[in-house]
């Protein structure tokens, strides 16, 4: 704000002078920030001692980029953005939304149903693998996890930093029970969900009295405890080696995807052998699971329990004085959210064929929570968009081989994946603090359903 008022005072020619000064400061600060970390590199020499390499050229590039970037932002970008904002405010708001905006979710679902077919027709059966598996399934897993967490954070307003624990419970339930008891995926999927929901309740009980950040740290601690137990309880979980050789899922027991099986899917239909069919089946499976999550969420929001969640998010004290039992409300939110985490976990185990504690670190919880918040808490479409942008964007980075031509053959884009992910979280949040979809549709309304801005709905304190 201070900068804005400053700017209007310094209109005209002195704006450039001011921008130059800002640019100079930015350069000086970035020199201080990067001089040790970019200007010098610690590497091991042949005798395994640490030595320093000088990279002054790179440091220079960093400083110049920061200074020039700041100069351009202050001198050109900001006045331009301010002018655009003023122009937008002067223009009356458009009443009708376009066709594609109104039917966005329907179009998206149809596109997702056709997605594997489109991938096959463009890239061929074998070529579609990458697009269906690495991109499609990966994004949908996060969409499902984020929709599950949305029940806890977005609807009930309980800040959960350890959601990945339930994902782990689901994954290990399937991995261990299928290996030791030979049960099929279709039996274990509901069982994994129930077990995860049960763990959700176990976590829920002790944290009932906690609020806000205390709740956040205890859920984080719970997530870490589950992970550490998975690492250390080697007799059961095989520790850091993980559980491998997890059986594949079959098409409801009718066709199998095992190559040796008599009822192999490809053999049954006389198709050439390829792992792509299995991946496409998995794609539809996770799509169905994700849509189930969305459907349940939408239905629950209209049921008394969903309304109680949202009421508790808005004001817990008011809730209690109206006679709502906050204990059961919180516990149902935790356990239903956890149940979807468990479903996603058992899907994850079946897709990877291998689970290890490495997959259930805090970073995963943070990514899922980030997707929920970036999407605009409580908005299913927004969360899906956020998952596509954040996960799809970083997955695509693996594919950007042309960057090698720009930055030289030593450049590996994968290395920068998480760095860019972290920075993207900051940029998106600063740019749209209310998430991609900042408006809410109330479930309870008088006469007419009006969309309210997200800034009118309060976030939870619980």
């Amino acid at each position, binding site marked *: 704000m201070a900068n804005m008022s400053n700017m209007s005072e310094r209109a005209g020619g002195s704006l450039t002078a001011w921008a130059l000064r800002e640019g100079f400061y930015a350069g000086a*600060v970035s020199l*201080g*920030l990067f001089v*040790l*970390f*970019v200007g*010098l*590199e*610690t*590497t*091991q020499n042949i005798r395994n001692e*640490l*030595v*320093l390499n000088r990279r002054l050229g790179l440091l220079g590039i960093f400083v110049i980029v920061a200074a020039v970037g700041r100069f351009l932002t202050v001198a050109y970008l900001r006045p331009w953005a301010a002018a655009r904002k003023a122009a937008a405010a002067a223009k009356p708001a458009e009443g009708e939304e376009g066709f594609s905006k109104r039917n966005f979710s329907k179009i998206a679902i149809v596109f997702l149903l056709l997605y594997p077919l489109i991938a096959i027709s463009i890239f061929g059966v074998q070529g579609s693998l990458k697009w269906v598996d690495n991109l499609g399934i990966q994004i949908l897993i996060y969409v499902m996890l984020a929709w599950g967490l949305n029940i806890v*954070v977005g609807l009930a307003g309980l*800040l959960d930093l350890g959601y990945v624990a339930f994902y782990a419970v689901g994954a290990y339930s399937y991995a261990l029970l299928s290996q030791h008891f030979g049960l099929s995926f279709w039996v274990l999927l509901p069982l994994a969900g129930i077990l995860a929901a049960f763990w959700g309740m176990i976590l829920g009980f*002790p*944290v009932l*009295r*906690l*609020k*806000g*950040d*205390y709740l*956040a*740290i*205890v859920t*984080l*601690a*719970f997530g*870490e*405890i589950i992970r*550490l137990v998975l690492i*250390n309880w080697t007799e059961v979980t095989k520790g850091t080696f993980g559980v491998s050789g997890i059986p594949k899922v079959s098409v409801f027991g009718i066709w199998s995807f095992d190559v040796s099986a008599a009822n192999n899917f490809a053999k049954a239909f006389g198709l050439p052998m390829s792992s792509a069919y299995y991946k496409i089946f998995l794609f539809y499976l996770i799509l169905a699971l994700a849509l189930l999550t969305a459907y349940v969420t939408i239905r629950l929001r209209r049921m008394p329990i969903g309304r109680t969640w949202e009421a508790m998010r808005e004001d817990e*004290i*008011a809730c209690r004085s109206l006679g709502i039992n906050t204990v059961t409300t919180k516990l149902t939110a935790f356990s239903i959210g956890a149940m979807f985490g468990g479903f996603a976990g058992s899907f994850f185990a079946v897709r990877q064929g291998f689970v290890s504690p490495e997959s259930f670190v*805090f*970073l995963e919880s*943070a990514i899922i*929570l*980030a997707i929920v*918040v*970036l999407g605009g*808490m409580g908005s299913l479409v927004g969360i899906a968009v956020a998952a596509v942008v954040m996960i799809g964007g970083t997955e695509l980075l693996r594919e950007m081989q042309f960057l090698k031509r720009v930055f030289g053959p030593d450049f590996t884009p994968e*290395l*920068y994946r*998480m*760095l860019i*992910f*972290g*920075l*993207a*979280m*900051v940029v998106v*949040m*600063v740019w749209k*603090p*209310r998430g991609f979809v900042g408006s809410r549709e109330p479930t309870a309304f008088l006469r007419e359903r009006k969309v309210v801005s997200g800034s009118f709905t*309060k*976030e939870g304190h619980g």
Partner: protein
Amino acid sequence: MEYFIQQLVNGLTLGSIYSLIAIGYTMVYGIIGMINFAHGDIFMLGGFAALITFLMLTSVFVGLPVVILVLIMIAAAMLTASLWNWTIEKVAYRPLRGSFRLAPLITAIGMSIAISNFIQVTQGPRNKPIPPLVSSVYNIFGIAISLKQLIIMLLTVILLATFWYIVNKTSLGRAQRATEQDRKMAALLGIDVDRTISVTFIMGAGLAAVAGTMYLMYYGVTVFTDGFIPGVKAFTAAVLGGIGSLPGAVLGGLLIGLIESLWSAYFTIDYKDVATFSILAIVLIFKPSGILGRPEVEKV
């Protein structure tokens, strides 16, 4: 008995480091009510700054006295980490002040991911070992106390005393406490709230950088992921002591350090972090606002 006291000393050393980090968490939480998730990575960044300064100094001036070496390392780490925390606050947290509660938490997590990966990209993913700077060990009544441990505890006491003085006796500290109690009222009374918050971030980063330097000296190795676990434990310490309370952060840090080393000494080392987190959960169940935290009274 001697074994017990030995473990007590180890625990207090570790606890001192946690306390210094925890103060940064608790101060930032007290003044703007957000969990600065990137604080653990600022601690790691401080360690790396100290490591690089050490390598720079030893390659240019051979045979520099250890005292001067360590002091320069600490100074460089404090400067760098403070500059980083100041910039992060300005870029990632200040635009979201007054926004809803989860927004700065998400940018903080984003910054934490970005910082640790920035170090991975620029400095490489491998462990960075450092030769021992001070290695003498004293034997007092059968208890081995290394000079490193003494330095760490002494430095922590000095820093905490300085810090206590700043917060309680100077006008800057008064401004900080006023901002903590009521930001709007403090602004009305002529306190530059933005500057006070910036200074809080700088002070927190300074303490974390000292902790990072000492962690590097104590364990003799650092790596880009080192920010997470000590960061989470320090945050646990802050919550355990009652977040927002400075003596609470110190007490919580010492307790976490003691729990960790006593558990590893008497039970199994594998489950030491499980023990820490479980004790946190148990304490919070019975005392939901921490040991020294004042329970929030909600007014309708």
